[in-house]
């Protein structure tokens, strides 16, 4: 199976080509076309993986392994289960949104822009498939650098402070995770005498309760920074506000999902006992996040900042679902991640488009846009409704499943979470009212509305959101988290064949 490494390599190579193209033919759309072609190839690879996976027995759908650093027991190992597959598809869809809508008209060094965008996507893909802990860490850190440069170069007025904040928080979390990984590896080494970074081998490590809590906390903090969980969320509003549109979409849509993915894969499944112990704390943090994010969203005047705080609120549901201790909750959490990725990504794209046209993010200076920009406003309305969890849309499924799972654990928390939904309706509708409804304050010049290209992309996204809302079964079936002790049939058979 060479397809899995291709998911990482294709965007990287494509990005390099786009960069070279941009330098060679400045002032043309060459980098953008290269980037689009790369995404098409990547999607084709993904499609190939998916089709092959359909007939596969067992939860693990694809496998790749090659030696890397044998003296430390580090291999290039990648496995894919349903969870990875769903998130990879989410990445694919959102990358298209980024490239088709946001980065097409980038005139300032477009080659570099596309390169950085694709490198980030490559790192994210790597995070979603790596099952060697060192490899995972490698990708985890790798995806930060291009994002940092994207924000520094193309961000808005206070970009430098936002970029450094983003980098320091996530890197600090990453370093803690590095210590946890090493602690786990060496604990395993002490017990068995085998030095390995392999996820499946490490899953069975016997450890004392205290050790497992400490190790788990390292992972938990790293992912909590990324998700984000409330006391560690401070980097998020600034970063999202200051990032360029494509960067915001990528951040909200995909990068935050790596946190949720990590929580499921490396916290819940790797440390089940320790997870059970911190469940109350995590639940409280989740519900605090929901209410706090929603409360702050209510008072924002900056459009992007409002969406950023609403992300904090929505991702609180992910934390609740992951720690609810039931399959139902995890299914709901994944659904919520997908739905949030799509709807918030789209909202950021719309907000970015508004900012490009109006040169402001201040909602007090907007209003009455419906008459001027009917297509854009309708799209915005749709995704605002999706985001507030209107039944029939994917967000509703996710939130509902999470609340259902949490109800079985703690009704109080579930009620508080549901209250967050009410708040989210309030701020979403306020936003719609302030931006799109009302009267246009002055007879401003005519603004360009969404054209065919934008409407096609958003239309397809809407279709996905509605489809998942009405018929979520396939995704829910796929995302049953696969326990690491279920050793892949593929890896055993592929072990004989060697890599490839």
């Amino acid at each position: 199976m060479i397809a899995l490494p291709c998911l990482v390599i294709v965007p990287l190579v494509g990005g390099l080509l786009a960069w070279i193209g941009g330098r060679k033919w400045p002032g043309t759309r060459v980098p953008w076309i290269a980037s689009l072609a790369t995404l098409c190839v990547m999607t084709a690879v993904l499609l190939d993986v998916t089709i092959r996976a359909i007939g596969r027995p067992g939860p693990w759908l694809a496998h790749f392994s090659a030696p890397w650093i044998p003296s430390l027991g580090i291999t290039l190992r990648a496995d894919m289960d349903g969870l990875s597959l769903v998130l990879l598809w989410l990445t694919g869809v959102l990358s298209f949104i980024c490239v088709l809508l946001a980065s097409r008209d980038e005139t300032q060094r477009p080659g570099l822009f596309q390169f950085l965008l694709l490198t980030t996507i490559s790192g994210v893909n790597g995070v979603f498939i790596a099952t060697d802990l060192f490899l995972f860490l490698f990708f985890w850190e790798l995806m930060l650098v291009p994002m940092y440069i994207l924000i520094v170069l193309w961000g808005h007025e206070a970009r430098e402070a936002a970029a450094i904040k983003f980098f320091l928080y996530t890197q600090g979390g990453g370093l803690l995770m590095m210590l946890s990984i090493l602690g786990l590896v060496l604990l395993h080494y002490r017990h068995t005498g085998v030095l390995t970074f392999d996820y499946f081998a490490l899953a069975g490590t016997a450890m004392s309760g205290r050790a497992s809590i400490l190790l788990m906390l390292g992972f938990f903090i790293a992912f909590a920074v990324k998700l984000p969980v409330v006391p560690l969320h401070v980097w998020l509003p600034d970063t999202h506000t200051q990032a360029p549109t494509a960067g915001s979409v990528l951040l909200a849509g995909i990068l935050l999902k790596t946190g949720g993915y990590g929580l499921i894969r490396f916290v819940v499944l790797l440390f089940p006992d320790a997870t059970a112990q911190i469940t109350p704390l995590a639940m409280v943090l989740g519900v605090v996040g929901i209410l706090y994010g929603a409360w702050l969203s209510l008072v924002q005047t900056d459009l992007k900042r409002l969406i950023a705080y609403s992300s904090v609120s929505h991702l609180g549901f992910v934390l609740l679902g992951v720690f609810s201790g039931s399959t139902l909750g995890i299914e709901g959490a994944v659904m919520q991640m997908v739905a949030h990725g799509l709807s918030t990504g789209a909202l950021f794209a719309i907000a970015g488009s508004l900012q490009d046209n109006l040169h402001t993010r201040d909602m007090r200076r907007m209003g009455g846009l419906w008459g001027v920009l009917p297509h854009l406003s309708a799209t915005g309305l749709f995704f605002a409704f999706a985001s507030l969890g209107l039944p029939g849309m994917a967000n509703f499924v996710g939130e509902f499943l999470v609340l259902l799972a949490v109800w079985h654990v703690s009704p109080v928390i579930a009620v508080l979470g549901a209250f967050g939904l009410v708040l989210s309706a309030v701020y979403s509708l306020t936003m719609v009212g302030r931006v799109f409804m009302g009267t246009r304050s002055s007879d401003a010049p005519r603004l360009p509305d969404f054209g065919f290209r934008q409407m096609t992309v958003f239309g397809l996204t809407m279709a996905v959101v509605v489809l998942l809302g009405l018929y979520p079964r396939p995704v829910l079936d796929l995302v049953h988290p696969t326990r690491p002790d279920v050793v892949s049939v593929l890896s055993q058979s592929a072990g004989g064949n060697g890599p490839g």
Partner: protein
Amino acid sequence: MMPTFSALPPSVVVLSLGTMVLMLAITIKRSEIIDAVLTLLTLLVALAVLPMGAAPSALFAVDDWHRFSSALIILSSIGVLAMSWRDPTVREAHAPDEFYLLLLMSALGAVLMTAGRNDITFFIGLETLSLSLLGLIGYRQHRIEAGEAAMKYVVLSGVSSAILVFGFALSYAETGSLVFAAPHALHPVEPLLAAMATVLVMTGMFFKLSAVPFHTWLADVLEGTSIPVAALLSVVSKIGLFAAMLRYFAGFDLMTPGSVSDEVTAVALLSMIGGNLLAIGQTDLKRMLAGSSIAHIGYLMVALLAPGAFGLGSAGFYLAAYAAATIGAFAIMEAVSPNHTHLNSLQGLFRTRPALALGMAVMMASLAGIPPAVGFFAKVYVAVAGVSAHRDLLLAGLIVGSVMGLFYYLRVVRVMLMPATDEVSTGRIAAPGNAVLISALALVTLVLGVYPSLLIPRNPIHLGADVEAATLPVSTQTAIR
């Protein structure tokens, strides 16, 4: 193994012969090309003869650790040589011939140190290195800052040598032998005296390594010297000293808590935090790299404090990663502007000279420990060693230090990304040697970062902890007495 020539390590023989030949060549005819070629040739031959063995001796340990660290030293010296070729700042006061001579001598001293198994051989190596470094620092004698740097270096180097020798004397008084090892390893009669000796020797070494709190001279000295010498000072001399320090503690049990282990831990922590704090406030690149170098010495001490299979391997790997990135950063500064090392000189580099800027970004990423540069794996490797030895406090320091380090490493990248100012011209063309050096180092940093097992030996290196074998034969001992 090839036949042995003498008890001297073969590379030492080659380097000393090369020094003499170079001196003769300068006597006969002053020509920079001849000097450079001779220096390069000597270094290459010294590198080539490294695998050869030597007759067993009580003075030199010609083992794998010596070979590895000497290879690093010689390669770094070649890097400095490439950097200084056609550097205008090196030759503004003097003809450059003696520069090459001193460069070769400092390589000789550092190589000698890595093989030293006896206090005397170590000390001769150390002084050869220090004296030639002094000459190099003061090479631009008409500059006031060079004079300041040379004066600071000579005073502190002298003081630290004195402290070191006093430690050796105490150690000799206690154990009756001049074996280069912590006296605890030699079963001393009086632990207090032995501990005092160790602490004094360590203090001397910390001075030369510029670990906090013995670090104050480094930033000033680096600022006052030319860029190649700054690179030499922060790479070659530190590799030599750190390699020797590992040998010094080879037979010593650093794992059990005690005064020595505590002192090293404290110095390591202080260096990580202090070095980074020093670097954060700097706007001069050389001073910033001085702080960074202090912090990296602190990280390296985590490996020193974690003896065992991981400690030595990670120390070696980290040294290599540090050397490549630091020399690379200095080489790029040299290519951008040899005289003006303010942070502003890099402004807009990504637009004016993108290849150089990319190289600098790679070096900064490596120093900061960000993949795909080699510094990332180096940091993970050191952390493996630290975790395996349960050095929790040091690991916390490593993390705090790394996060602090991001501030200034990323600042360099950010300045390079900023729009270029008008007065910044496209600058001079990088000298060919320097261009080759920069591309080679960038390549090494990236390739090793993606495929680090190239530098990890299959069989872990063992440091000769055979203290008993290293004791001098009785007749020689009496002769020395």
